[in-house]
């Protein structure tokens, strides 16, 4: 018990802080008088006092945190905050089960964007704002988690960002102190979010929709205030705005941070992931456009390009908005989009999957092995940009890939054993683990996750957390070795 007390102590502080997150929907609710005000009052009180009680109880266990505590803290924060986030939903919608509410909250905080709720258009605006605000908070958490915390814990090749720089700029630890780094990243994140919301508003959304979708886009979440998602607006301009900001959010925030700090766009040229992300996306969009034209799904090029581009960018960056029910496209197209979502987003972005950096490293490692086969005496290093990557990082990335694939396999089997059809089970797990949102089959973009039974819903919640916490962080806490003294 003494082992987890200091962790609980920090958690209690986070909880008390988190209580303030309900102020925004509360304010909106009061201003609009949408009738959900009580839900937030209750949420604030319960969250704050739970935090306070925990704080009093754990006061004596206060000590410096160790690396091992870091894992537990991260997992606890990500598992406990969704529980408190359910309060407004449970209070306002009494018929909703805790299982579903927790799924919705995890989907929000992990910026996945899968929903079990329908009739979104008739919900009070403040509830929709809360749902997507979770995306935004989650995205903020992920950026700091990935840029500042995971490198310290050494998860899945993340040390790359600590000791080695993937770019020629020898300034990868952005500022000397972690708190300073976090502050800088959040400022950039907040600025871009405001820009996104203003653009959406100027593009024709009303201000509530602009806020809701701004939160959703920047966190690369995918919850919307409309059942029809982006198709509700049917506006090419809005779709372009969403695509642009989704791509911005899929770029590493360290790069944004450096660009803001040096006031030059040159930093983007040095980012080793950007060319790959944009190259693969552009090729995929063009390919899918012609594929859909060839299959006769769309008759003219602009229409095909519009849907292929938006849905590919949206799914691949793990945002998860849709302009059309791509579930009815020939399966190759949506499966390819889902496949892209497993690696398109940059590390240090709010997107999910294994991240472009790892994918590029794996590709280069394979290329290196091939070169070694042709030239047995060759000395070849796997490089990121111009920087050689040490073998231990390659091993970590390989292990990461293994655990990623293994998780998908195990969870897919679990879901299909529980009664889902294999296609739905597989695509649901991929969409969960990548934090994309909509899967295919029964959980496609036009339907939602309400079809799952309780057990399946819990498995999906677990899968989202697993993907968001980069597998190792969550799994290590579940090993007996972790708890042995």
């Amino acid at each position, binding site marked *: 018990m003494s082992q987890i007390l200091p962790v609980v102590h920090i958690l209690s502080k986070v909880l008390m802080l988190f209580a303030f997150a309900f102020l925004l929907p509360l304010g909106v609710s009061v201003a609009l008088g949408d009738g959900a005000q009580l839900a937030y009052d209750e949420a604030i009180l319960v969250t704050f006092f739970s935090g306070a009680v925990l704080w009093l109880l754990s006061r004596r266990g206060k000590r410096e945190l160790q690396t091992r505590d870091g894992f537990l803290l991260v997992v606890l924060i990500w598992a406990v905050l969704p529980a408190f986030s359910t309060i407004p939903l449970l209070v306002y919608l009494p018929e909703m089960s805790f299982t579903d509410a927790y799924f919705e909250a995890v989907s929000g905080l992990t910026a996945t964007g899968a929903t079990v709720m329908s009739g979104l258009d008739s919900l009070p605006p403040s509830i929709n704002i809360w749902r997507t605000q979770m995306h935004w908070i989650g995205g903020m958490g992920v950026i700091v988690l990935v840029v500042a915390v995971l490198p310290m814990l050494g998860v899945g090749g993340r040390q790359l960002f600590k000791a080695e720089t993937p770019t020629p700029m020898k300034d990868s630890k952005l500022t000397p102190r972690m708190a300073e780094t976090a502050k800088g990243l959040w400022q950039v994140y907040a600025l871009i979010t405001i820009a996104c919301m203003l653009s959406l508003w100027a593009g024709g959304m009303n201000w509530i929709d602009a806020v809701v979708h701004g939160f959703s886009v920047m966190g690369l979440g995918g919850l919307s205030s409309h059942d029809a998602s982006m198709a509700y607006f049917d506006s090419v301009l809005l779709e372009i705005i969403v695509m642009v900001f989704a791509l911005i959010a899929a770029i590493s925030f360290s790069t944004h941070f450096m660009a803001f700090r040096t006031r030059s766009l040159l930093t983007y040229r040095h980012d080793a992931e950007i060319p790959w992300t944009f190259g693969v996306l552009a090729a995929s969009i063009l390919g899918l456009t012609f594929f859909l034209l060839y299959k006769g799904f769309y008759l003219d090029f602009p229409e095909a390009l519009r849907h292929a581009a938006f849905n590919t960018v949206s799914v691949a960056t793990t945002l998860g908005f849709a302009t059309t029910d791509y579930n009815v496209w020939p399966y190759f197209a949506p499966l390819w989009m889902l496949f892209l979502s497993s690696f398109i987003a940059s590390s240090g972005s709010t997107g999910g999957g294994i991240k472009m950096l790892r994918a590029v490293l794996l590709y280069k490692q394979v290329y290196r092995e091939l070169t070694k086969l042709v*030239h047995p*005496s*060759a*000395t*070849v290093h796997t*490089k990121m940009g*111009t920087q*050689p990557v040490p073998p231990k990082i390659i091993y970590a990335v390989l292990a990461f890939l293994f655990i990623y694939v293994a998780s998908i396999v195990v969870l897919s089997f679990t879901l299909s054993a529980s009664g889902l059809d294999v296609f739905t089970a597989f695509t649901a797990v991929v969409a969960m683990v990548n934090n994309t949102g909509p899967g295919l089959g029964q959980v496609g973009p036009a339907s939602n996750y309400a079809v799952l039974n309780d057990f399946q819903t819990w498995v999906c919640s677990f899968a989202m957390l697993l993907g968001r916490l980069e597998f190792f962080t969550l799994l290590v806490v579940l090993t007996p070795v972790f708890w042995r003294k």
Partner: protein
Amino acid sequence: MKIIILGAGQVGANLAESLVAENNDITIVDLDATRLALLQDRFDLRTVLGHAAHPSILKKAGADDADMLVAVTQSDETNLVACRLSATLFNIPTRIARIRSNDFLGLEAGFLAEHFGVDDVISPEQEVTETLRRLIEHPEALQVLDFAGGKIRLVAVRAYHGGPLVGHELQDIKRHMPDVDCRIPAIYRRDRGIVPKGITVIEPNDEVFFLARKQDIPSVMRELRRMERPVKRVMIAGGGNIGRRLAARIERDYDVKVIDHNRTVSNLLAEQLHHTLVLQGDATDEDLLEQENIEAIDVFCALTNDDEDNIMSALLAKRMGAQRVIALINRSAYVNLVQGGEIDIAISPAQATVGPLLSKIRRGDMAAVHSLRRGAAEVLEIVVHGDLKTSKVVGRRIGDVALPEGASIAAIIRGDDVLIAHHDTLIEAEDHLIVFALNKRIIPKVEKLFQVGFGFF
């Protein structure tokens, strides 16, 4: 001239050798007593044992009344400090430093002069790398020299049977290539120099020097010999300083493979080079060469530190089918031994370094001096000053300049323009003349011709 050389390594020793041969008083400073003893035995010079950047040692070496200091130790920092000291403490008029690191070389022009008292920088590795790069660019050439920032080049090429111009008189060039302006200042036939005239006939196996604009060089060469296939694949044996620089310089333009036997060096190479295939192994290992497709290699460069290794691996590569082989050879005895045999080109790093220094010790205003044919001949880039009265050159037509036998004016660089020399070209003040001297004996006469008379001051 009284010259102090700091550092008795390869560069220092070669430098001492050439400078002693030109009647200079040389003092050489080094930390290694055996090396100094060896030099003292071979040449007529003075040696001082000690650290080259220590004031007491410099004083001992005669810094008080020296005319020139040449700092060519292995360490850039030592060289820089020595130049600073000799400028401040001893007022040596001319100070030259060898700089290897790109960090220093990348500083803005004039920085080293202002803050470290370095009048001129020489970088032997860089010189050799550039020489090699030009040879790879023109694989048929024996030697390629840049003038006017590379706008015109002097190229040595061996004439072969089958070249359209071979067996014809020189004046036919104009008929063969009406739009190409080119000049042939010298031909070596069986190692004897000829200043060619319009009626001179080019014979097979002549070593022809010609000067032309960069873009015209392939068409002139095509007149003299059958062209080889364009260079695509280059193999470099030895990943030392020169091998690494060369690979880094050309890896974007050619398909480059580097062989080095040292694991640490190969690792370093693989880290620093991004488009080069680094192989760890022995360049004289037949199996390795075969495995790496030696017969498809267009240019093989043997660039290790070891002359014998370079010769052997170059011979082996040639025997196994490499199109053209270049060997880096330090000992001048070996250079004469191998060049022109199976090894196509022998490059002596010393020659590449000595050239720039020679321009500093010559009388008259020399912008550049290049040694040709292993020091037997020279090309000088001379700046002419004065007017019709004070100078024997300015204001006259090229045909009227009383050049000594064996010397010829090949081209004139005037501001940004390049004029290929003709009989009636008028020489103006501040022109840079490119003068070809068939052999070294006539150089003092050339120097004298271009010196400005007393009336100028």
